[in-house]
């Protein structure tokens, strides 16, 4: 066990830091969910990252990456969040679909989709859930009918993040009409501007339009857009979900920066704070550190050839509950200013803590609800019976 960075890793950190210092926008970008303008500003930032080959450092060089290992990815993320760089508008693409494409895609699919994903020219939404298929994702009904070299997509997808402004979506469709549950599903990509696609934005808890419904009415896509074999969609989706929950979706640095801001907020509030709040502030720091240590441990194991397992589920529960606790502590510290929304003259840090609190409440729901994650832990890690 060696918990000291090598000289190469330190040099890499310095390189990332100086590039970010020179390129991160001075002013925060407008939200990518609230307006086309904000979305395009984030796309522009993705292009800047890609030009510096910083878009996705773990990807192979031919797809715009640097072929770096997971420890270097963690260092990159630490510097990225430290610099306060913009959130990644293409996270559905680069963190979720990208790694899955690399594992299951044909060479032609990889060359077609990965470079444009890395460059931000194509930004992705996820189209998994349906009105009757939430936690019970295997209940999807949207269909993909094979006609010659095309699929015809029909159905109703919902809760699709980024779908309002994104260019493409990847969705789970029933390609075998007689199939049930996990069988007969396929993972298929479709352009969100294709004929027959209608997007209906859904206002979120904060009034912004972060997710949407997608209505598919005889949308024709080439069979080339199917990832993996026909009928293998479920296992590919689970691989995507494993990666999503496991490592990439929420890098530790994000919470370590939140913890640092919370400590700063606490120290700025004077020394006569409630001891319970002080303990909660210390716990926020400890939990963020614990999450980082855990991810470094997983990254070390994966680097040595290990596989990600049920820790995908433990991670997701831990970070989502930690995020809520940190924001609640901040609201306690803000007292009467907790309720002030971002445009209020007295709002602290433009209402960031309140916005962050709202967003944190989505954490235990998206990417597989925490109830489903607890079932997975109980059944796969602890071996408790399914029924």
């Amino acid at each position: 066990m060696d918990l000291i960075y090598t000289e190469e890793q330190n040099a890499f950190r310095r390189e990332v830091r100086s590039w970010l210092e020179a390129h991160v926008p001075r002013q925060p970008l407008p939200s990518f969910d609230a307006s086309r303008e904000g979305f395009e500003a984030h796309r522009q930032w993705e292009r800047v990252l890609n030009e510096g080959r910083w878009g996705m450092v773990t990807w192979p060089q031919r797809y715009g990456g640097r072929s770096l290992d997971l420890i270097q990815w963690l260092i990159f993320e630490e510097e990225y969040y430290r610099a306060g760089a913009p959130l990644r508008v293409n996270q559905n693409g680069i963190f979720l679909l990208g790694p899955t494409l690399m594992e299951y895609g044909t060479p032609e699919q990889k060359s077609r989709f990965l470079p444009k994903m890395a460059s931000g020219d194509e930004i992705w939404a996820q189209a998994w859930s349906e009105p009757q298929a939430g936690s019970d994702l295997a209940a999807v009904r949207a269909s993909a009918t094979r006609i010659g070299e095309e699929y015809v997509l029909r159905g109703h997808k919902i809760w699709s993040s980024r779908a309002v402004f994104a260019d493409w979506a990847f969705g789970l469709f029933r390609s075998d009409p007689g199939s049930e549950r996990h069988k007969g599903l396929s993972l298929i990509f479709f352009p969100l501007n294709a004929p027959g696609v209608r997007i209906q934005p859904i206002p979120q808890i904060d009034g912004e339009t972060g997710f949407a419904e997608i209505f598919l009415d005889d949308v024709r896509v080439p069979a080339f857009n199917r990832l993996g074999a026909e009928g293998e969609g479920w296992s590919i989706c689970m691989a995507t979900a494993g990666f999503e929950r496991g490592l990439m979706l929420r890098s530790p640095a994000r919470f370590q920066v939140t913890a640092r801001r919370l400590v700063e907020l606490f120290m700025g509030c004077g020394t006569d704070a409630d001891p319970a709040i002080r303990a909660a502030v210390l716990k926020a720091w400890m939990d963020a550190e614990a999450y980082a240590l855990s991810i470094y441990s997983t990254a070390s194991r994966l680097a040595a050839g290990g596989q990600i397992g049920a820790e995908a589920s433990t991670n997701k529960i831990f970070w989502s509950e930690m995020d809520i606790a940190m924001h609640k502590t901040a609201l306690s510290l803000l007292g009467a200013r907790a309720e002030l929304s971002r445009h209020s003259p007295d709002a602290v840090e433009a209402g960031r803590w309140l916005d962050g609190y709202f967003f944190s409440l989505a954490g235990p729901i998206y990417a597989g609800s925490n109830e489903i994650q607890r079932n997975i832990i109980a059944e796969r890690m602890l071996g408790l019976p399914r029924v």
Partner: protein
Amino acid sequence: MDFRFSDEQVMTADVVRSLLAEVCNSQDLRRLLTSGSTWDEARWKKLSELGLAGILVPEDNGGLGLAPVDLVQVAEACGYRCLPEPLVDIVGIAIPLLAAFADHPEVAPCLEQAIAGEITVAVSHPVNPYVPHASRAAAALIVRDDGLYLVAISPDMLTMQLSADPFRPLHTIARVPATRIASRDEAEAPLRQTLDRGALFTAAQLLGMAQGCVDLAVGYAKERQQFGRPIGSYQAIKHHLASVQVKIEFARPVVYAAAADLPHDDVYSRARISQAKLAASEAADLAAHAAIQIYGAMGYSWEVDVHLYLKRIIALTQAWGGPSFHRERVAARVFEKPLGPETTFARETDRA
């Protein structure tokens, strides 16, 4: 940067785990409990034969010259089995403190016998007013205001206290004439490190105990039927246990990192060790509660082993500094040193 144990470390822990599975299972605990004794001499002999006594002692002083990270999983394994004998206290805490004064004429023979497994040694430290297993020890290291003392233990200097943990005999030690082996100044650094080792290895035991409680409860939940199904098939039970397992999964890397960090002996390593103690105590507390709840009325009985874990967890949560003590050591790092994602492993001296 490589957050993994070496093959040797994995192997050492495996050897201890298999031995304990053989000599420290539920029947063994029950037999000892019935006998009214707190120490199984046959088991202790087997544990001594593992040759772990000198693991943290420098090679020049007759030890193996290894580091806390080589012992941390052994401590976890001892906790997992609720081992009655204080192997961890002796090997991880008492003997390394003796070794810090190996040159002292009265310490040297004592250290030699302790490494050989001929005697055990207890430590009386101000954070632990009640000394466990002092009556079985040949000698005690005692911290007093003006330094560190070594004393041969005789029954008349011990006043018994009764722990709820039936395997944890406690004593206070009377202020008898003793040999001062170090002044307050000379003892300062070794005692600081002793407290760190105490907190670290106690955390590792608590971590193991937490998993021990979960595994007991899982075993019961698979067997026990209600409404015609194993209770472990109900989400109410699953979610209890999954929540505990999450706590354990996020305490474990903290405990391991604390072990790797301990030799730095600075504000960062102390905060990590304290964090480990807090996280492991919390996981163990939650695990014991969940296990009792899942066992139902059986969990409140003397008959199942959960109460043995619960009582040890109560004891170890306070041993080598309770939660308030350790929270303040974390505060010293959080409120006075740089924070942020780039500071997890880096110290001021080697920060990029």
